[in-house]
């Protein structure tokens, strides 16, 4: 099977602050217990491509910012039924500010975690993404959207439990040609770091991975991983998976619709 083209990466594995993620995250099983089962039952075999709006980070190393913005959109949908586009530019540049990284040199999941849970995120319309490195924050914008996050998911059981609850997972791992496939059924370390979003499940048991390389990458911007491949990546010391939930979601009330 032909490899998929590789886009820009940007996850700074080398600068990741796992201790911070452990300190501020909540135990995944406790957070799941608080998260209410959906009423009615959520069909986790639904195709995320029917809902998510795939973005393209283009030539910037902003994968983590894109994944963080996608996580926020998914959580807001789960909480409100509405799809809102959040700013990957804000997520990327604010993460970098927290990471103390200058230049287009990527960001970490711990930086993104701080943005999503402490600082807050803004809308795409407030801080539009452009394919040119410019961390200048537009004046006068608010960052009211915040979520709850788990501690790093350490075991495949934790990972599956989070995923099977219909909640998104942001991942950061070493990305190489094992990953540039329509179906990732094996994983080995090596290559640069890349951050993406996992959400829902295929009817064959594989897990969709939402990328930020445009809608034409693998036809719809999403590919699949087997649980075995996910578990291999999970066991590696440089892989980080964080579960996010709309628990205690803070956001302004949207305009009513009918």
């Amino acid at each position: 099977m032909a490899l998929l083209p590789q886009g820009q990466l940007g996850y700074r594995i080398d600068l990741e602050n796992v201790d911070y993620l452990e300190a501020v995250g909540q135990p995944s099983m406790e957070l799941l217990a608080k998260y209410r089962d959906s009423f009615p039952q959520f069909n986790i075999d639904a195709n995320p491509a029917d809902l998510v709006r795939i973005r393209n980070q283009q030539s910037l190393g902003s994968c983590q910012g894109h994944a963080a913005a996608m996580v926020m959109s998914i959580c807001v949908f789960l909480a409100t039924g509405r799809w809102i586009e959040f700013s990957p530019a804000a997520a990327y540049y604010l993460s970098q500010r927290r990471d103390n990284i200058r230049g287009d040199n990527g960001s970490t999941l711990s930086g993104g975690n701080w943005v999503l849970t402490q600082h807050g995120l803004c809308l795409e319309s407030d801080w539009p993404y452009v394919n040119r490195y410019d961390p200048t924050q537009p004046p006068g914008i608010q960052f009211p959207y915040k979520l709850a996050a788990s501690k790093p998911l350490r075991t495949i059981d934790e990972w599956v439990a989070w995923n099977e609850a219909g909640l998104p997972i942001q991942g950061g791992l070493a990305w190489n040609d094992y990953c540039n496939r329509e179906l990732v059924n094996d994983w080995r370390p090596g290559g640069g770091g890349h951050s993406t979003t996992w959400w829902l499940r295929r009817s064959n048991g594989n897990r969709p991975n939402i990328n930020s390389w445009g809608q034409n990458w693998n036809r719809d911007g999403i590919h699949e991983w087997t649980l075995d491949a996910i578990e291999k990546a999970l066991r590696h010391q440089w892989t980080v998976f964080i579960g996010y939930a709309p628990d205690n979601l803070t956001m302004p009330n949207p305009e009513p619709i009918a």
Partner: protein
Amino acid sequence: MMRWIIMLLAIALASPTAWAEIKIDARAVRAIDGTTTPAIVGGRVLDYGTDEIKVTPAAVITIESPHKYHLVRARKLVTIAGQTFVSGESVPVTKLDTAYIVAGDGRLRITVIASDPGLEEAETEIVLGPTPQPDPGPGPGPTPTPTPTPNDIPNAYNVGQLSLSKSPPDATLARTMAQWYREAGMRLYGTPTLATIDQVLKDIANKFAAKQCRDQPTCQAWAAWKQSIDTAMIAEQRRRGRFSREDWYACLIEIATALEAVR
């Protein structure tokens, strides 16, 4: 320290369910919570602790399956307007060495999702707590279909009774429209496909615009109905601050239920 002793003394129901290769055995038990140093002597449970002890309904779930990973979920089933739904209330599931314990009461649906190899799902239901009284059965003669009154229509979102009272006497179109609202609600939960509330409301509006009425006065009456319902939905969102996805689902079902009662 053990705080739970599971007493397999009173087995109310055992309902194994087999879907393909997964077998679920769900047995109702009584759990004793609060014990510290329990002992069973002569058919009695003795506890040397001083904490308050409670006996609560629970279920022991065992699974036979060739899969590597299992996820067990338990949810309460509730009945609203004659239809059974999975409640939003989470029921805790505790994993033991070779079984799972579910603590709760009422009618529960137990779902096991197993993967690797492949993916399988199996479900069973169990009733915990006081044994429900048996249905006395129908009396002599045919049972008449009850006609719902406005008071029978759910109205938590202030659109149910309005939907019924404002609708013209057009049961055929009302039932068709009820289906639109029900399907819209399910799409928020991915059945058959995912959609946002904006998308499903737009779908309903498009279908409403394309509907065929039996005559002009009925068409006008339905237009007035839609206007009233839309205004009420907006007012309710303002009153609550915002609708959650669950609120949207319940609101859409409230409208559908009312339309199904139109005669």
